[in-house]
């Protein structure tokens, strides 16, 4: 019973994603796209908002991205071209919705972008959850291997805190993905651009009196 309801919550986009033949490009179901973003990671970034999310966290800022339908279809190479045309942006963030529901297509995109851009992804899954998921879905591991930073875990309203850097709630972590994969467990990034000069991943004392 539980299993089947969880199944129902699974993305048709993901199903299409993995069935895609190598000859045809994979499809990304897109909820929105921004350039010159400053709120979803350090530097100026493009933000790819994907459509569809299974988590339904209470207090989610983008509930319009939950539905599996809606949004617009695009391809990794189309998005790549949009990102390349921005000139100023040095990073790309996958957001949503749940990026890992469209892991294969986003992995394709991330591979087109690196190393010119640093690539980060949000996820409502935890790193550990993603590792487990990757046993069934190879695309999840492909995407993990293609990104630099993962901000993981669902939004938990009770732990919401607006003084956090690039995160919504205190349970979320900013992980160095290559290091985490190498260690086999979650490793926080040390990059001060992500976690602040003091490493607290919160707004430093200097930002207010």
């Amino acid at each position, binding site marked *: 019973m539980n299993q089947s309801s969880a199944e129902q919550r699974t993305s048709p986009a993901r199903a299409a994603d993995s069935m895609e033949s190598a000859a045809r490009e994979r499809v990304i179901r897109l909820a929105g796209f*921004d350039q*010159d973003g*400053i709120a979803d990671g350090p*530097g100026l970034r493009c933000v790819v908002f994907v459509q569809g999310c299974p988590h339904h966290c209470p207090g989610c800022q*983008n509930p319009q991205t939950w539905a599996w339908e809606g949004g617009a279809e695009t391809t990794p190479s189309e998005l790549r071209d949009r990102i390349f045309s921005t000139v*100023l942006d040095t990073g790309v963030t996958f957001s949503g*919705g749940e990026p890992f529901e469209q892991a294969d297509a986003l992995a394709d995109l991330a591979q087109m972008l690196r190393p010119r851009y640093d690539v980060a992804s949000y996820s409502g899954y935890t790193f550990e959850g993603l590792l487990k998921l990757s046993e069934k879905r190879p695309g999840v591991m492909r995407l993990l291997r293609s990104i630099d930073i993962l901000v993981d875990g669902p939004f938990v309203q009770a732990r919401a805190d607006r003084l956090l850097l690039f995160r*919504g709630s205190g349970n979320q972590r900013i992980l160095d993905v290559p290091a985490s994969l190498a260690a086999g467990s979650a490793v926080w990034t040390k990059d001060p*651009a992500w976690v602040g000069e003091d490493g607290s991943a919160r707004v430093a004392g200097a930002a207010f*009196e």
Partner: protein
Amino acid sequence: MVTEILKRDGRLDSYDESKIVRAVERAMRDSGRSDFSSAATLGVKVSDELSAVSKDGRASVDEVQKAVETALVKAGYEDVAKSFRLFRADRTRTREKNSALMHTFDEITTRDARDSDLKRDNANVDGDTAMGTMLQYGATAAKEYNEKFLLRPEQAKAYREGDIHIHDFDFYALTMTCCQIDLIKLFHGGFSTGHGFLREPNDIRSYAALACIAIQSNQNDQHGGQSIAQFDRGLAPGVAKTFAKRYRTDLAEALSLLAPDGAAVPDADRMKAVFATAEARSGEKPLLGGSPAFDAALRADILAAAPELPEAALDKALAYARKTAEKETDEATYQAMEALIHNLNTMHSRAGAQTPFSSINYGTDTSPEGRMVVRNLLLTTEKGLGHGETPIFPIQIFRVKDGVNYNPGDPNYDLFQLSCRVSAKRLFPNFSFVDAPYNIQYYKPGHPETEVSYMGCRTRVLANVHDPDRAISTGRGNLSFTSINLPRLAIEAHGNEAKFFAGLDAMMDLVAQQLMDRFEIQARRKVKNFPFLMGQGVWLDSDKLHWNDEVREVIKHGTLTMGFIGLAETLVALYGHHHGESDEMQQKGLAIIRRMREYCDALSAKTKLNWTLIATPAEGLSGRFIRMDKKRYGIIPGVTDHEYYTNSFHIPVYYKIGAMEKIRKEAPYHALTNAGHITYVELDGDMARNVKAFEAVIRAMHDAGIGYGSVNHPVDRDPVCGYNGVIGEVCPKCGRRESDELIKFERIRRITGYLVGTLDRFNDAKRAEEHDRVKHGLGGSGSAGA
């Protein structure tokens, strides 16, 4: 029999037939007649006529006039009747004009600044205070006078009807716009403010205090902003003086502690003389970074004066004294900078109603003293005023220069990075770029006065056709400027490009004449009319003049400037799109602005005066032009359908465009607008959390050839808990909701280059513009709850 006359204001006056006779005589003279004897006859006829109609012996002014006209016509003097009518009409107009002036005074007196656009015209004056109101009476009356007496009819018409805008019109006959103050020159040997003589300052605290006084004093002589061209170099000697003093006293103290018993060492008084000798012998002064000849001389002198003192003890004392003095000097400099910012935000000029518009340029002095000034200025700016509020003044301008502060390894690169961090939190400093081709062209290494300086709002003065050897920033400024309503010329051209350019040329002819007329008025002013600016030699070459001399020759160092507003709406009116929308329109836009620049250059070549083109900062004006044009032409989509015309060559704030694209589109206009320009990039979100993004934008500006630029981003503050950052409805720190309590969040925004604390003092058009701003590139707000 008529005995009394009822005047328009309700008063009664006695009837006087001779007044009627005189009026008729004047009308006869006006129509070229000289048979004045009949005037007397007519006077009698009028009296009779009035007696016949009046029942109570009274006649109204209108009745009298009517009777005179009838009598004239009956006597066959049609032409005289006509000139009598004209004369009366003229009197009526004058009377109406007077009462219009009085109505304006009434608005100034009784209406709250919040409801009156007139009173909020200048966001920096508190229109509700007594002094602010008095200023506005003066400005209103002065404008009336200037229009009636000083403008030619065609100029008055163009100004009144909104073809052009004459900036600072209330000061039309009185003074020039602004000046870049050279502090080093001013402080040398001390100066007088007109209220007393101030001797050359002796430590960093008095240097900073006098810098404020210089700004305040000059603000009373000019109507525009006041700027210090080389703030770091100007105050560096103050740091050196403070250091020398501390070093001396710390050394005396250290010696007295470290010297072995019985060894006589110079005490504090004696040390003064020792320092003076060492300075005289070495020709150097004690400096933060050390000065080899002085340091050697000092060491030798002390050993000579204290033969029993072991060298090791002396070296220990010297090292200790230097380190301690450095630290004390740093603290003193911080306090001086803190005081300076407080001062500039609270002091008043102009009868106490206005905080001086102050700007300071800095960033390229690599001396340890200059660096200490800038670092502490930035740190105190970052900290904010007493309760952490964002300082509104001065406008700070960090001057970026390759090889000096732009790249890792450059001596002041740390200060550039600190500037980015501070601006990401406080909106200042802005950034000016010496490396832009049209700025570097004048740059001579070793001559800081050739580095471009900007007046906070954007004004720039550098080239000098009057005196090409002195293409410098200091001691010069803008004389006056007038802006052209470009969109109206475009609307009137009905899509006909040739017609537009013909109209533009004619308008520039008119403006050139008007600026020349104003120059002539300004040129006749005397040194004594500018006791500080000219009397103290702040303006270039004014030190060569006497108290009663005309300023004509020296003000030729200044600029005569044309400006423009609404290039975007102009392009839409002419071609259907603006320059943000296509490269083709960009070319069209550049063609228009190039035409204006070439016109100015040609005039400069011809007259040997500095004619320049400015990208007008549009406060007040942006709403004035469009209101008039809406009335004239109705709502034209993309042209008159907003509350304001777009600022100069900017891409409209309501048009969504990437940051780089905006920079790339606006940069070529910087090269053309040699009297000043600024580009803003709007970013949404808390910039202080992402300084890397901020720096990326500034670097993009530098590399694209922008001359002067800044990033606009929201800066909010909760006065209750002191949180500074972006605040929505709820304070992120204390969770307070704005609607729950009386105390509102403070929201700092930038308006025409100046910061304004709340939106109250914005005039309506600027408020609408603030509201319409599209943050470049950003729409959504992150996910995973972030």
